[in-house]
Every structure is written in structure tokens, then in C-alpha cells.
């Protein structure tokens, strides 16, 4: 299956073609958000990440579906005081 990933701010990728912040990723069926993070070699802890699948807050254990839109944001509590 294929999901679309939106990388935010410091997670953007430097490539020879320039900065990449939107990419398609092929994953085996039944993959979880955590598997996607591992595939992308994102090593930030869950405390340091905010995840959204199809515009809803997601947990790392959530199973992904073909065509999902995944936003990966290095944004954590603070600021809003929450």
C-alpha cells in the first residue's frame, strides 16, 4: 500500500533536488504508524512528535490504510501550556 507523508519543519529532507517535505511511501499491508516512522528513520521519541492520520491525532500503534495522509510534526506540548 501507499501513503502520503507530510514532513514538518525540521523533519524536512535535504536531497540533491532540494528540500522535500511531501513524499509517497510504499509499505507492506498492515503497517502501523510506528513502522512508517522506522522506515523514514525518524528517531525522535513519541514525546517529541505529533502525528496525524487523515487530519486526526494518531498513536504509533494505529494501522495505516492505503491512501492515508500522514502528517509528522516535531511539535510537542508547551506553548499552549497543555
Amino acid at each position, binding site marked *: 500500500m501507499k501513503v502520503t507523508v507530510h514532513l514538518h*519543519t*525540521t523533519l524536512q529532507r535535504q536531497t540533491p533536488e532540494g528540500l522535500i517535505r*511531501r513524499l509517497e511511501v510504499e509499505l507492506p499491508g498492515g503497517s502501523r504508524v510506528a513502522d512508517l516512522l522506522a522506515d523514514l528513520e525518524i528517531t525522535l521519541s513519541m514525546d517529541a512528535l*505529533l502525528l496525524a492520520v487523515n*487530519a486526526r*491525532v494518531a498513536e504509533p500503534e494505529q494501522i495505516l490504510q492505503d491512501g492515508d495522509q500522514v502528517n509528522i510534526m516535531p511539535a*510537542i506540548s508547551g506553548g*499552549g*501550556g*497543555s
Partner: protein
Amino acid sequence: MVDITPERHMKVWRVNVCEQTYSIEPTPDTWAHLGGRGLVARILVDEVAPTCAPLGPGNKLLFAPGLLVGHMLSSCDRISVGGKSPLTGGVKESNAGGSTGLQLTRLGIKALIIEDAPARGGWWVLLLSPEGARFEPAGDVAGLSVYEAAPRLLERYGNHVAIALIGPGGEMRLSAAGIQNLDKDKVPSRIAARGGLGAVMGSKGLKAIVIDAKAGEKPPIAHIEDFRNAQKEYNKALMSHPQTKVYADYGTAAMPRMSNGFGGLPTRNFSQGTYEDVEKISGEYMRELLLQRGGESETTHACMAGCTIRCSNIFGGEDGKAIVSPLEYETIGLLGPNLCISELDSIARMCYQINDLGLDTIEVGAALGVAAEAGLMQFGDSTRAMELIDEIRKGTPLGRVLGSGAATTGIVFGVEKVPAVKGQAMSAYEPRAIKGTGVTYATSPQGADHTAGLTIRAKVDHLDPTVQVDLSRKTQINMAGYDTLGACIFAGFGFAAAPETIRDLLNARYDWQVNGDILQVLGKEALKLERQFNLGAGLTSAHDRIPEWMTRQALPPHNAVFDVSEKELDEFFNW
């Protein structure tokens, strides 16, 4: 010469604009433990009839530095400005960075209270210095725009002064007018924007307040070593926080893609939660653009001396010349997607014009969205949007309507879809997609205001109506606490990682013995006082509501309505 130091205590400076007199008074005991937003609320409850006319002699214009202001602690030198709001008819505190707060503390000013109404016409400059307070005719700066007036005032009073000033919007007493303060580079861009306090300043006949603290001195610290230790801990926590780097590199402009990612980016006058051109207005794109343009562009810029986060920026055009500084998320959101305008250069130029008029970009952006709904402009037409902003500059009836904010614009043009609570426009977070922030909009005594309690970073289901009141309450209490300290919202990253430093800094500064819950104690007190003032002004639970159309009209992509129950909203202040 006024002796500002012997007791080493901060004083209350009271200025009467009718008599053009002033007095310096000891701080009342019940005010001593407060600063910033909490002190503004306390003074309003103690001294201002909540039923007074906001632009009349009964209202007072207040300036109160936060409790930690004066020591160049990173991101902790904010000034709170307050009064009864002409926009909401209720309590108002609006805070800003820049140098005003720091310089007021160097004159030993705990609170500046400006009262009464001018006996005669004309515009005045209020000069504050160790010599005391003095009125001087504004002369040739009267009628000038913000960016024209500030350099002339600096020429007149010296490059070292701090200035709080109004633009033509404040002179016209428009409800969207704010009060602008100089940043560390002397640019008058740090605006106490919300709620029409610029109109209150205009009603007092003051074009500018100039603070000359060259001969003043830093406020005293009771236990200097303890203070420095706590400061070190706080700085360490702030600097090691990953979010600090995000904000240094991208500023608040990191938010468009995040809000869009949650389906909560207000688009087309709050009718969609995602924007097809979000990449073009993103902080990530802006950073690339500014690095490429170079010249005066800066992606990382501090608004206050001593700030280590430096979330601000200077937006330069194709020629590298600065168009505006800063260009922030809320401005991008309300003037960009909200109007379906996707060119950052156009948004930056509109931002400059609105700043120059001395108006709140959120309120004007929302008013333009309502104007577009009414057919006064096409969505996406930045040329027409600029023409409408120019109507405000000309002071035409249409311009004055727009400059009075989104709610007034909706009334005049018969538009139901107005994104406002208690008369104040929402900022760039959709309450139907980020419902905790919707609760904040509904229940904050300030009216719709994201800075009162933003919940988008919380790891909750933002669409679940049952968890939002608790979340918003916690966030609002913390934010009211930070606003009482004079701490920027982003100082919260450091304080959240090392919460004991708030207690330690306060105890060291004031020789207090407060506990680790002091942030919440201060926050709760501020909110209770604000609520008390509003109840006296006739703003009750009936006003703690999201506009009715947002409970009915579904927002794509989630097709969500605002469905937090009214019963729960009414429980907000029961803690």
C-alpha cells in the same frame, strides 16, 4: 527629581489626562503579588466601573509589566496593556514584546494608570522619565502613520527611549486599533493588538507614550544568587528544548501546515479547514524564500533583547528590501487562506499597511473575510483587499466599518457568517476542527483569542467534544499565569520542562515563599477577576458561546460542527 529607588519597591504611576497631572503612589498590598494580565484585571475590578463607556472618562488605560519583567530573562519582558474593551464591552488585556515593559520597570513602574478624558482637543505625547510624567504636544506626529511617527519620535526624544504609540486607526478610535511598541531594532511592530486598546488610548488624547529610562535602574532582586541559578536552569531547559529550534528557524509560520494537517486552517471566511495552496504560505516555504532572497530578510529575529528563541522574522521582497517585520502565522492565516490569497508578498504588503494604520491584523483579516462574504471583494483578489485597507486609511465610512472589526462588518452588511465571540474575531484555528481552542474562544473573558489557551499541540482527539473543556481550562489557567509573569507563550517550553524555576525566580526576585503551583494560582486569580469584571459589564455565560452558525454548518474535511455542550461550557469557571 522623583526618587524611584530608596525603598526599592515598584510604584503605581497615575496620570490624569484632563488635568494633565500625575502622582506616584505606593503599590496597594492586594496588588503587590500581581503583574501583567493579573494586575490589569485587579485594577479594572478595583477602579473601573464595568458599565462605563469604553471611550469615556470612566475607562482607564493600563500598562503593567509582568512579574518577571526587567531582568532580560529570555522571552520574559512582555508588557500587558488593559482597559475595558470597545470591541467586546468586557475586560481586555493584550500583551506585546518589545522594549516598553523592560523600560517601564527601569523607572520603577509597577503599573501605569491613565485616567479621565482630555479637557481640550489636540494630540499629546506622555513623557515618562526619572523626572516624572510630562505632557508635550504631539505636534507634527499627530495624524501620522505608525511607521512615520516612530522615527520622528525617536529623533525628538533620543534613540534610547521606548515608545508605545497609536496610528490613524487609534486616532479614529476604531475598535480594531492596537498600541504598537518598538522592538529591539526600534521598529514599531510589537503590537498589543487585540480588543481596541488603541481606540482607548486615542480617547485619552495620547498619540504616544515615551519612556526615557536612561537614568533609571534595573528593578531590585532580593536574592541575586538564587535568581541567577534559577535563570541558568530556565535557560538550559529552554535551549535544550527541540521546539526552540523549530521556532528559531520557522517562527509561528510553522503553523499553517500543522493547522492544515488537522483540517483546522480557516479558509474562505471559515468555510473550509484545509487550503489547497497551503504550501505556498507555509513557514517551510517562507524560510526557503527568505534565505534565497537575502538582503534585509531574516528568518530568525528577536523581538525582545535577551530572547534566545528569536521566533520573529524580517520578510524581504524580491529586491531583498524589508516589506514587513514580522510576518506571523495569525496574520498569514487571516489574510491568506481566510481570503484565499496565496502570495506571501501580497500578504506581507497587507500586513505592513495594517500595522502602519495601527490595527490588529487578525481583526482586519477577519473583517475582510466577512466583506468578501458580503460581495465587497472576490476571495483571492489581493488588489481589492488592499483597496479596502486603503478605505480605512482614508477614513471613509466603509473603511471605518472594516476598521471596527468583523462583528461590526457583519452587522452592517447583513452577514451571518461572522467568526467572532463577544465581538472579537477568531484567530487562525478553526473551532470546529480544534474544539479545545473553540472552548477557549467561547469561554475566555477576553473574547475569541488563541493566546488565551491554544490546544492544537495537545495529544487528544480534537474532534471529541467531551474532552475539550478540561483541556481548555488547564491551558487557559496556565496562559493567564504566563501572561501575569510577562512570559511569552514560547517561554512556556522552558518553564514546562523546568516548572520549579517559576517558583524559584519569583521567590528570589521578591523574597517570597511561593510554592510550585504559583503559575496556576496566579492564572486562576487572573481569570476569576476577569470573569468578575465581565459579569458586572453584563457579559454572562450566555455570551460564552461559539457563533450559532458554527454549530449548524459542517466544516470540511471532517464535516464537523462545534458540538461541545452548552452545559459543559457553563461549567467552565467551576473549578
